[in-house]
């Protein structure tokens, strides 16, 4: 990612974040589960996952939140401080079905010397909406 942060004066409500496609593999799912210390077998053991009715191992929620955060800060830059990630959970993220991230600036205001942004963020795959929701963040003003 770039080490330069977005300039708040150049952000407008309606701006779209650049799209990002995550190639979801078993490795991506297992790496995220273990890095987040989630040892639930559904996130690393396909036999267990299928016995539960899932098509394969599926991404844990901690990893989903991690990728949503990464998607937003890859755009906003290192000065961004996330203040919330609120998502509705839908279709599972499973190996072989890439997740497509999109986002849009839905509100912009100023508070305490910082620019406060609200973004609508969505991650979808061929099964439907994996995660949809709102991320809020602040960026220092000049």
């Amino acid at each position: 990612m770039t080490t330069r942060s977005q300039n708040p004066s150049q952000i407008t409500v309606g701006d779209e974040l650049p799209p990002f496609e995550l190639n979801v593999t078993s490795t991506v799912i297992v790496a995220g589960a273990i890095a987040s210390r989630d040892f639930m077998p559904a996130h690393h053991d396909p036999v267990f996952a299928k016995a539960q009715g899932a098509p394969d191992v599926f991404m844990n929620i901690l990893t989903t939140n991690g990728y949503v955060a990464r998607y937003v800060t890859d755009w906003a830059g290192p000065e961004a401080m996330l203040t919330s990630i609120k998502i509705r959970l839908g279709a599972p993220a499973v190996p072989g079905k890439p997740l497509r991230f999109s986002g849009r600036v839905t509100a912009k205001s100023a508070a305490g010397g910082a620019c406060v942004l609200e973004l609508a963020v969505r991650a979808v795959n061929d099964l439907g909406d994996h995660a949809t929701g709102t991320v809020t963040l602040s960026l220092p003003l000049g």
Partner: protein
Amino acid sequence: MAEADPVRAAVEKYVGKAMGPQSAAPDPVNVPMIRHWVDALDDRNPVYLDEAIAATTRFGGVVAPPAMLQTWCMPRPKIEGIAERGGAPNDMRFDNPISVLDEAGYVGTLATNSELEFVRYLRPGDHLTLSNEVESISNRKTTGLGQGYFVTWVTTYRTTAGEVVGRQLFRILKFDPSTIDLSKLKAPR
């Protein structure tokens, strides 16, 4: 007057109450775990590991990825038998509404909402505790997965000094798989 629902009545006592004991993170926020996360998610934001760049930012030094909030407090798992426990990390049990719904036949679990709030970013050395409170339990609903109840709880994360650093609202649907109306299930696209 709504129809009497003995299951809903049995879980009413949990609403607004603590769910389980307060627990402490096994380790303080630390760079090795941050590095593991950064590599696993390929998140190259320099404020997480690059001390020189982080020092020039508003953070003044390295900070943990905010979405790791929950990770710090994940319980240490007992791997042996984890599948037989349905994925529960350990044998710890406490009185809670989810077990009551399980015993009433609402054995299915579907996570529907996660709402993380970050009061401030964490730094290496911060040592967290968490406590859970049941925020609400819905009346019985008919959903795409049959009959069930939405259970919502809020986790509050504090430092050991008592400073609130974040919160997470979590909502799950506990459903009875035997009540799923198969004629209404949508085929995956």
